[in-house]
């Protein structure tokens, strides 16, 4: 067991596969859950998967720009959460609920 683990090398593909699984779990979370706040958490999972991909490519291509791009993702995520949660608060005030079913009036 020891030599097997010692011989195994963690290549960037491992991180990419992990990020793919994380992204998929986030996607399914957004699709399946009806609580809007938990849907937002699914979006956060997807953003984290993308960040992981960025860092893995930065390591693979030996370029620090991949890590710099994660900064911009973080900024966008922070802005998204701030505005999104404000929207949720506004919906809750109007509808007394924060599930996706409370937004049925939006359908055409």
């Amino acid at each position, binding site marked *: 067991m020891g030599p097997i683990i010692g011989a195994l090398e*963690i290549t960037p593909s491992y991180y990419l596969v992990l990020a*793919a699984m994380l992204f998929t779990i986030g996607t399914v979370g957004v699709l399946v859950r009806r609580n809007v706040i938990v849907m*937002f958490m*699914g979006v956060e999972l997807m953003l984290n998967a993308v960040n992981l991909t960025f860092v893995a490519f930065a390591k693979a291509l030996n370029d620090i*720009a991949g*890590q*710099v791009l994660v900064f911009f993702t973080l900024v966008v995520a922070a802005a998204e959460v701030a505005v999104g*949660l404000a929207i949720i608060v506004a919906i809750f*005030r109007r509808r007394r609920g924060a599930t996706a079913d409370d937004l049925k009036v939006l359908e055409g």
Partner: protein
Amino acid sequence: MTVFLFFTFAALTLTGALGVVLSRNPVHSALWLVLTLVSVAVLFLLQDAQLLAAVQVIVYAGAIVVLFIFVIMLLGVDRRETLTEHLPFQRPIAIALGAIALAEVLFLAGHQWATGAKTVSGVPIKGGGDFGNNIQRVARVLFTDFLWPFQLTAVLLVIAVVGSVALAKRSGERPEGPQTDTRGARETSEGESVP
């Protein structure tokens, strides 16, 4: 050691992600999200992204999750979600779509990536001249090559702050009409009853 750390925290990441999706209580989802975010920070550390690991813990696990929990508690939606689904077949179709997406992204991850560009910034992660440590390398690229996007993020943050303030402002305070006023009055009365 690296292999052991990778598999441990990869498992913790996926466990936290599944916990986020499968928990019926939103507060539990937020706590599982903390587990995922901290595990991803450790995975950043394993890939020589020390600054990003710190930022991940401070900004994500610190600020964003606290904001989530704050809104959950403010709205009092920390009760269990009813699992009745109004749309027929919505959940199986969603899971099937997720499986297809997983297969697709795994296919992409397992093959050669499309771009062959070796470098755009000229600053490597490790070695390659006197670029300093991780923070100095990130700062060098962030404030030279990415200066214009960096300024734009400042604009974006200002827009987000102003927008969230405008959205979350109590509608009762605005002189809009009697309908808005009654809604505001109902909110305050119900808001007081919530402990």
